[in-house]
């Protein structure tokens, strides 16, 4: 897992990762919040059904795809946390979920 560095910015934003409340510093990406919540993997791949974690953290690799506030396949490293954001790991291919965007 990832933890706040000593003397770094304190936890300021509460988000829900897999239903569990986690406090993270402002400016944290949703992908980093998942790592801070103690999860190693952020998704299960659609092809080989294998665990994957974020790799590049800069919007290139798409290995951090997650479900954010009900919308599947979001690039979680490119999305900053907001209070109350619900972040769930992406399980294989997305299912069509009308109305969730």
């Amino acid at each position, binding site marked *: 897992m990832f933890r706040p560095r000593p003397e770094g*910015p304190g936890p300021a934003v509460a988000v829900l990762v897999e239903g569990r409340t986690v406090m993270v510093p402002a400016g944290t990406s949703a992908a980093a919040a998942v790592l801070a919540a103690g999860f190693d993997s952020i998704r299960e791949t659609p092809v080989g059904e294998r665990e994957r974690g974020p790799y590049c953290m800069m919007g290139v690799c798409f290995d951090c795809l997650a479900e954010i506030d009900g919308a599947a*396949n979001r690039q979680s490293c490119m999305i900053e946390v907001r209070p109350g954001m619900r972040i769930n790991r992406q399980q294989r291919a997305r299912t069509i979920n009308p109305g969730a965007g």
Partner: protein
Amino acid sequence: MTVAVELAIIGAGPAGMAAAVLADELGLDTVLIDEQGTPGGQIYRAIERAAPDTPLGADYLAGRPLAAALRASRVDYWPNTVLWHADPEGALFLATAGRTASLTARRILLATGALERPVPIPGWTLPGVMTAGAAQIVLKSSGLVPEGRVVLAGQGPLLYLVAAQLARAGARPAALFETGPLENYLAAARPVAGLWAARRMLLKGLASIAAVKRAGVPIRRGVRGLRAVGRRRLERVAWEGGELAADYLLLHEGVIPNVQIGLALQLRHEWDEAQMCWRPAVDAWGQTSLPNIAVAGDGGGISGAAAAVLTGRLAALDAALWLGRIGAAERDRRAAPIGAALDRERAVRPALDRLCRPARSVIVPADDDVIACRCEEVSVGTVRRAARLGAQGPNQIKAFTRCGMGPCQGRICGPVVAAIIAEALGKPIAEIGTWRPRAPFAPITVGALADLEAADFGPRGET
């Protein structure tokens, strides 16, 4: 509604920020588009929130005046905005806050920066294996550090920098493995003139290595056969002759230009043998093979942040000439000191490129079982077999194997696939070519597409 501007700059890193500020000064109606919420790009990410005593160091703080100048300018800055289509005539299609927007620009400047070279080792898809830059991004943007036994592996200045930064941030790495071929040191030292030109950079590098040693991080040189081992996540890092229990493996083998948008626009690209990467063919002003499109910064070839600022300014001057705002004499007069500074910055590159040349095994994995395409989970062996069966280039490999057809659209596997084909066919990579990426450059919803107004589609009702 379609907005018309004179200059649209894509990317708010050092090149994009510097170009935008100067273009604004020269009176150009300028839009700056960026995926992130705040300016800085990757190198100066979250720079506006950086504390003066940041563990990231003084070079990082050099980005502050750039961001401040941008904020003080009249540049129309669009943060949190993704460019998902650009056509060669200057129509840009954007997604921002769940909405679709479009604009037309008389001139486009691509300042899309660099990405870390893919490091396809066995096990590189395991959770817990990340790039060194990824860990640095998390440290910059949220002050979070990896916990447990962290191993850094690869080569290049960033590897040592990140190791030192993590140590300063209270997360001392367990080890640093250097994979660079030892003969690189000899190659780098060969032309004495190059060494002299590179002295400042080399001293910086040595200081960085010293900082890592001082922090008590064991350094192992000449590491070969690196592997990430584990079942559901990384458990151990193994190499020829040993292994080490590890919670995180941070890989880095240098950076390469991010050419995705330029390739989609079918700009002419060249293979850069010294830097082992594709880059757009540009002139001294960053002008590409299309008259209205220029490139600045590391997206045009790796030269670092200081050079990126300078190429951004040159491109802004050239844009002002192109748009009729200044004459050629004024452009050249203002460019002279910038060009001289750029020459000094770039003098270090030949030696640095030789020093940081990735080992052959990094470019073409020997092991057929290694994943080449992380998205579609296509192995090196599958790509190799398809090449031997007659796939002559990346675009045919795509059709044969689905490699490059996943969400990253070949951004990560592109360099790996081209190198595997080149080896299988016994041809230089330069002859193999690249993917032909297509819009959308980033995933957008059908809803966002439907959001486009008919007027966005130009006079003939098409893009």
